[in-house]
């Protein structure tokens, strides 16, 4: 009995993960969006922006864009935010909190499930990228590091999303709030090099975690990069990306689990 008990938090987490993944399996719309989004993003941004934007050094814009879109996909906190807000508003969080299970297990399980789902999105995006001219130009080691970094960043962002979902507490509010995410990814070097922005805006873009992860991904895959503008995170993109990821986890995992365990006021 006591031996199996040790595994309970893990099995509780797995049950929570299974719940998220089974829901997704039934939700055809969400599934279609997951598959469709990378294709649409690569086509719209790759060919619409690509026709007008010049990458420094005159390299292929799509080879520059695809690593950035990986980061946009990894930074998409909408599913975790809206999902958690829905659970909170419908009493699902309360039900789980009334069970004799570890209160930390559920958010961990949901984060794990979102990571699986995110990894699938990344693979789909990579396939689309390969089709439009993006290539992995460095070694396997670097490519795997890039992939690991993206997955880690995605997990960190999932915790941010779950925390915000708990704080917002209403599905509709969370859905509206997700519109505000576009500036976060847009104000970066994902779509265009930040060099052309006004100085104050460029400082924000250079220090945006999304920029650091995008720069790190480009460097590791051996894709066209942007000028660092003398900004430390872009001069050391891999270290900066790792640092941002660890920082987000250190801040948001405790915040989210504490909030989940404590519950809403009322």
């Amino acid at each position, binding site marked *: 009995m006591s031996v199996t008990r040790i595994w309970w938090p893990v099995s509780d987490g797995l049950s929570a993960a299974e719940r998220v993944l089974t829901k997704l399996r*039934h939700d055809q719309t969400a599934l279609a969006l997951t598959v469709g989004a990378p294709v649409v993003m690569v086509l719209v941004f790759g060919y619409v922006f690509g026709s007008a934007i010049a990458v420094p050094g005159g390299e292929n814009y799509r080879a520059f864009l695809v690593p950035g879109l990986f980061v946009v996909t990894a930074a998409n906190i909408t599913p975790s935010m809206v999902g958690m807000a829905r659970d909170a508003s419908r009493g699902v969080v309360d039900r789980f909190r*009334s069970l004799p299970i570890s209160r930390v297990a559920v958010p961990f399980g949901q984060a794990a499930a979102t990571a699986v789902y995110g990894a699938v999105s990344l693979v789909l995006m990579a396939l689309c990228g390969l089709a439009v001219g993006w290539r992995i130009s460095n070694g396997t080691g670097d490519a795997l590091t890039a992939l690991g970094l993206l997955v880690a960043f995605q997990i960190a962002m999932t915790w941010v999303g779950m925390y915000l979902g708990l704080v917002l507490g209403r599905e509709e509010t969370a859905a509206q709030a997700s519109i505000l995410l576009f500036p976060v990814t847009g104000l970066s070097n994902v779509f265009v090099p930040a060099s052309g922005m006004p100085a104050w805006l460029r400082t924000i873009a250079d220090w945006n975690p999304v920029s650091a992860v995008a720069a790190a991904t480009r460097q590791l895959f051996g894709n066209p990069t942007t000028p660092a503008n003398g900004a430390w995170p872009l001069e050391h993109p891999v270290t900066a990306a790792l640092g941002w990821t660890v920082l987000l986890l250190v801040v948001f995992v405790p915040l989210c689990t504490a909030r989940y365990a404590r519950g809403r006021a009322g």
Partner: protein
Amino acid sequence: MQAIEARGLTKSFGAIRALNKFDLTVPEGTICALLGPNGAGKTTAIRILATLTSPDAGTASVAGHDIARQAALVRGCIGLAGQHAAVDDDLTGRENLVILGLMHHLGRRSASRRADEMLAEHGLADAAGRLVRTWSGGMRRRLDLLASLVVRPAVLFLDEPTTGVDPRSRAAIWSSVRSLAASGTTVLLTTQYLDEADRLASDVVIIEAGRTVANGSPEALKDTIGTRVVVAVEGAADLSAAASVASRWATSPPAVDAEQLRLTARVATGSVTLPELVRHLDAAGVRAQDVSFRRPTLDEVFLDRTGGSARDEARKEAVA
């Protein structure tokens, strides 16, 4: 042993005091209904007892475990169905129950078996494989109730289990609750429907502004209000004679309606019988057309015991 014992529970949200030295005792195996106007503190009481939130002051034990110091043990003994159907729309009914079974550490095989067994037992087997999104509201609430019974709890908390539920599903939920109590589960439920409390509960606790204002069995509570006597007479002259007869037993001055030629009085239940009253009216020369005794409903008890806010609200709900 008492299944639920709460002493002096107090909880404030900002300036609002949701619970104010709230006491509650629920004996094992009984059904207790918590009645009160909206905002009286019913949900807060349930949330505290189910260890979802902690009180500012006071103590409570559920199934013999202290809610503050032994919260994990409490959670091992309770089931909770909240005001919303806390089931997943994007899962089938069966999947909803299986995942909860897994979270109760039943193992996959037992969890599946338990899910099928419950769905069949409660007449939901036909819908079991369909996404809950396609279920009716009443069916969802029934599934939500099952979700709190995956492992039979010693104490079950139901927060407004039948609010907004169609009559058929309501009857199904009532019968499930009754059979649970019969097999030893203690049930604490909140409700807005007084007939629900009347028909289901062995004890009723009326709560207002976070405090208990009355408690007892539905019958005992009705007795505190007494029996209402209505006498219809032929002429205005009969009214005053009838009033003086009724005053003999009335607990408060009888109300006289000169237009309708009717007199209403409240008497202590059992203090006078119908034939006895008729004899006295006859002896006093009252030409009575109709004499009736009416037991109060729980609604009357509720309105009598709760303040004006509750009365207004009840009126609004009656209109709606």
